[in-house]
């Protein structure tokens, strides 16, 4: 099922701005987004460069990102995209939204279950979207830091294969940290 979803409020094509079509891995969803939003991904940027001037409206297929995750990632990109769409200014120009607004958005954005968080980190890494990778990694870091191993295991669902003796040994090795 093809779905064109442009979630940027001001409408991608109404201002005549260039848009890019991104396609999920299973080919089930196509997303038309502003160029400035798509170019937040260094991977997409590289793919466009490699495709050259004759890149057709077929869109760019992202083999490692499924539809659900791609939709979520683009929600982030649309929010964080710079106001200007000229590709050279895309990195230097500030995003169209205010900083406080973005912070609030980011906080809400990562209130998701572990499965989604996992997919977002992996997608951000593959797509090389620095802001999203930092945000998701920081979210996971916040679940780990300052906690005891027992608390961390519970939060992340980790099962330890250490025997009690092995665990004692590891704790001894890192005695300075406990």
């Amino acid at each position: 099922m093809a779905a064109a979803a442009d979630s940027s409020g001001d409408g991608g094509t109404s201002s005549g701005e260039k848009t890019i079509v991104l396609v999920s891995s299973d080919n089930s969803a196509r997303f038309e987004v502003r160029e400035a939003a798509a170019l937040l991904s260094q991977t997409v940027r590289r793919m466009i460069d490699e495709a050259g001037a004759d890149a057709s409206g077929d869109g760019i297929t992202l083999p490692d990102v499924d539809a659900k995750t791609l939709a979520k990632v683009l929600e982030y990109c649309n929010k964080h995209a710079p106001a200007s769409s000229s590709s050279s200014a895309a990195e230097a120009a500030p995003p169209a939204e205010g900083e406080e607004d973005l912070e609030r958005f980011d906080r809400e954005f990562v209130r998701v279950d572990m499965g989604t968080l996992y997919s977002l980190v992996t997608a951000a890494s593959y797509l090389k979207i620095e802001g999203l990778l930092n945000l998701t990694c920081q979210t996971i870091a916040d679940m780990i830091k300052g906690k005891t191993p027992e608390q961390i295991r519970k939060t992340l669902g980790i099962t330890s294969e250490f025997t009690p003796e092995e665990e004692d040994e590891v704790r001894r090795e890192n005695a300075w940290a406990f």
Partner: protein
Amino acid sequence: MTHPPAWDRMERLRVLEVIGAVLEHAASNGAVAACLDLPDLALLGNPDMISSLPDDILINILSLMTVREAAVTDVLSTRWRHLWESVDHFILDMHTFGMQVPPNSDNHGNLDFWNSEATKFVGKVNELLSHHKGNKLKEFKVEFPLSSAHASELDRWVAFAVASHAETLTLSLCDEHGRVATDHTEAYVFPLKQFSDVGGCQLHVLSLCKCILETVPANLNGFSYLYSLSLCHVRMVDEVLLSIMSSCNALHNLYLRACHKLIDLRASRAQLVNLEVHWCQRLRSISIHAEKMESFSYTSRRADIEFECAPVLCELTACFRGMWHHTLALLDKFPNKLKMLTLPCSSRLQASRVLKHNGRFAVLKEITWFMATCDHRRC
């Protein structure tokens, strides 16, 4: 409590299983009440997905917390074992090791205490370093009152930082309150020779506090990418600083504070943009020859400042400790139109005297007045 996100059937079943198990366990142990930590419940019942992230992402995550918090993950499971040893920064101070300093303690009165604390600290750092894989480090920082008594250890830590291609190196041999190792022990001599004839050194930022710099070796190529140099309470003579600076082709920021052996400073660097000189008590003159310098900040009693070549210098901060005629003289000498000026504010009379010097203020965008409480004792 945050509203839990939509769960699929499997997740809900799993959570109910867990709640059931917890309540059973609590009941069998005679518990009268069981308290379930609900926010964590939202995350329960999910298979351990985070552990299946690739190494580099997990290391990235571990690099976002203190090295101590990261080391705790060593014991989580075999997957997490040794990952923390590749974190990209080491910030080593009292807090890293949970050491507490009694607020009223003072180095002079409590020699034994400080010596034993120093030995403890050094031991823990060595233990920590023995674990680290030593690959690319972004930052290596030590903040603890140490002196030449621990010179061989400090030399090894510097060597570790160089070998790990650290981008930022900070050796702050005083604690956060500015306390130093007892005054009677010699300060540590920073091993400049470790930056001589060294390949692949990516050092961008170097900050030293409470050290000695002497004997500059030939070919200090380890400093060729140095972007920021900050020297606070560093004992070095003019020639040593000049020699070091001549090896810093990329130097952008130079910050000098309480370097009391400096007498004449020559700031002559093609890429230098920001220069700050504070409280160098014996400093007699500063000559500036820097085509790209934009800002100059100065605090002291007096000095003769020559702007030999500073065509784009437009920001000035000057605190002459109440000697307003020095401030006015400096404003007279200033070669260009000022864009930003920061001065201590003592009285309206003095402020108006300065503003009358409007020849330099044609393009002045910002003038900042601050309370003149220049504390020269702090690092």
